[in-house]
């Protein structure tokens, strides 16, 4: 019993000391929302990002470190659309922090502010890892990031009204800079219009819709299901009839299937950052799309 008493005392001391320093504690489930929160919140927020770009966002465990950070969070910024269903509800529950429960001001879901694509017409796990709310990888289209930025600014203002002017200022500045950047990216990406491409996982639906590329086929026979050699052979046969420029995958995915098809179909295998931190160049939200477009242009040659 004695050590427990000592632990409690130490913990209580830390409890008193810790929160006084920080401003708004933000728990971002994925790097893109962490980066956006930093753009909007500046030095008035302290951002913790629960996962990194090399992790498969569908398969995350409710690690002790996540529970500890969720405990002190004032705001959770999640993608939603069931991307985090495997771990976030458990983390929130175990953290004992009612502020960040879904429905509370401390819970923000980006997918709620975006037009979702690929909403399944039927829900059946026989179709693979389907998300009832639609494809959750919304950050591959920067216009979605812009759509999320305004309501996220409003949420920061709601939670921290003392700094309202600061957040609004930053929100406006970000929207301006990012809007111009989107225009530039679209100009740069004109050669990609109509480019036939293969995706490894259906992770780029929004990117493809944004740039007007043409998704010929996915290497995964169903979302989240690893391709078999038999399936890849069928894909290869299809690619001989319907040639594609390149096969793209997210940084966190193994390159095996991509390389297999790239060698045989004589196309480029391109790894895209997918989120902030996925490549050395994708340091922030601007770098993310700079690098995505650069890699796509290189791959399309």
């Amino acid at each position, binding site marked *: 019993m004695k*050590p427990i008493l000592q632990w409690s005392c130490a913990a209580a001391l830390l409890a008193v000391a810790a929160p006084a320093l920080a401003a708004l504690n933000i728990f971002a489930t994925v790097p893109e929302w962490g980066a956006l929160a930093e753009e909007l919140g500046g030095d008035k927020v302290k951002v913790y990002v629960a*996962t990194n770009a090399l992790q498969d966002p569908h398969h995350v*465990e409710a690690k*002790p470190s996540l529970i500890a950070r969720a405990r002190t969070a004032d705001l959770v910024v999640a993608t939603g659309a069931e991307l985090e269903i495997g771990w976030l509800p458990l983390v929130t529950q175990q953290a*004992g922090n*009612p502020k960040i429960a879904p429905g509370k001001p401390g819970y923000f879901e980006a997918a709620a502010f975006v037009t979702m694509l690929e909403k*399944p017409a039927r829900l059946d796990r026989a179709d693979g890892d389907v998300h009832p709310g639609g494809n959750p990888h919304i950050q591959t289209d920067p216009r979605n990031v812009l759509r999320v930025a305004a309501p996220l600014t409003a949420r920061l203002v709601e939670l921290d009204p003392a700094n309202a002017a600061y957040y609004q200022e930053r929100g406006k500045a970000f929207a301006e800079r990012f809007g111009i950047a989107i225009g530039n990216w679209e100009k740069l990406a004109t050669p990609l219009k109509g480019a036939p491409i293969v995706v490894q996982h259906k992770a780029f639906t929004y990117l493809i819709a944004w740039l007007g590329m043409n998704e*010929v*086929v996915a290497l995964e026979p169903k979302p989240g299901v690893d391709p078999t050699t038999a399936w890849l052979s069928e894909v290869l046969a299809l690619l001989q009839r319907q040639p594609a420029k390149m096969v793209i995958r997210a940084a*966190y995915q193994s390159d095996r299937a991509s390389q297999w098809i790239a060698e045989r179909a004589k196309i480029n295998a391109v790894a895209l950052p997918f989120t902030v931190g996925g490549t050395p160049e994708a340091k922030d939200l601007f770098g993310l799309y700079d690098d995505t477009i650069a890699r796509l242009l290189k791959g399309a040659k």
Partner: protein
Amino acid sequence: MPSPLLARSALALALVMAADVHAATDADLAEIRAQIRQLKESYEARIEALEQRLQAAEAKSPVAAASATAAVVPTAVPTVASTAVPTAAPHAPSGGIGAFNPAISAVLQGTYANFSQDPNHYAISGFAPSGDIVPAKRGLSIAESELNLSASVDDKFYGNLIFSLTPDNQVSVEEAYGLYTAAPYGIAPKFGRFLSSIGYLNDQHQHAWDFYDAPLVYQAFLGGQYQNNGLQVKWVAPTDVFLELGAEIGSGESFPGNSRNKNGTGNGIVYAHAGDDVDASNSWRAGLSYLQTAARDREYSQLDLAGNDTQLAFTGKSKVAIADFVWKWAPNGNAQERNVKLQGEYFWRRENGDLTYDADGALGLTQSGGYRSDQNGFYVQGVWQFMPAWRVGVRYDWLNPGSVDYGTNGAYFGSTSFNPQRTAVMLDWTPSEFSRFRVQFQQAKLRPDFTDNEIFVQYILTLGAHGAHKF
């Protein structure tokens, strides 16, 4: 703030005490079965209604219908996907009577077991048996099927009911608890029946374990898994390093305690868990737990020195302490390709009180004497996912019978220094996060001159609501 919370907790506890779900009579079972049937019928009706709505929606939207058909045929030749945005199915929350249905999931399991020794004589030398530790029947059988219902109750509570359907057609309540979700300051009170959070493995359901059966320490010291009927309060410290303190009180009916027809509480539990990430690839959790409970006339049979299979009854206190540790590695935290999980737990148990020899008077030698035992044991295991979907694991169990003082009954029982031990290896295949197939071989030396070679083949299928990925 604390006083209404206290009042609520007290009320909740009172309710838990009043609603004793343990003694299920045949009438109760019949009632439960009738309720399940009703539940099934009402769901079937709702599913049918939903299917009709879906068909109507598909008829209206040709693109959605086409993509649905394409998805149905798994072996279809890949088709050229259009860049056109498929028309989205309407996603407004549907109303009606089914709108607030709880999340439902089910776990289906089956086993093939092969024992070189008769599992009906399963016993661990030097350890008072708890009754329910036989890992499986010989041959083919289904294992426990589990049904899980959960939902928010209102703005303050969350409820979860997990019942298991045993292969011999019994229904048992695995967990039935409420969670107070509105508590501030990192406090999470839980009340009802739940798997206690002592140790690491105890509050995980059997289908989430990395091996077919429980480690020997769980079988010997906790009778498999420690279930608590009562109240649990956990507190997470507001620190960057995970630190959680917890306490439980309950009825104390689970082994090594038993039902004692007593007012008040029957056990007390405290634990502390800590954990963190070392870097992006390495995470750990460690814990210390302590359980104090008691038993009255806890009966078991044991061979005495004269070779009589005698009935014994223990009355007294039982204290269990557990130290647990888990380490996980995955390159950059991406466990999909490769990962390693190392885990170990050390158990210690002390029991002191009275032991009645020949408790049923079969030998006409009934007598009571002092009893004191001091025993311990551990297991360590490692699981390695060497490629996507495939894992291998190895586990080693070891028990120390320690010192057992039979007092005046010492004439009937000798002391043993035999260490029961067991070594297991397993291979499993996890085609998706909802299905797993496993084969496990183990060699158990649970008694002197006794070696049991065991083989288990197992499947675990999960359907329905998405489960949680626990650490």
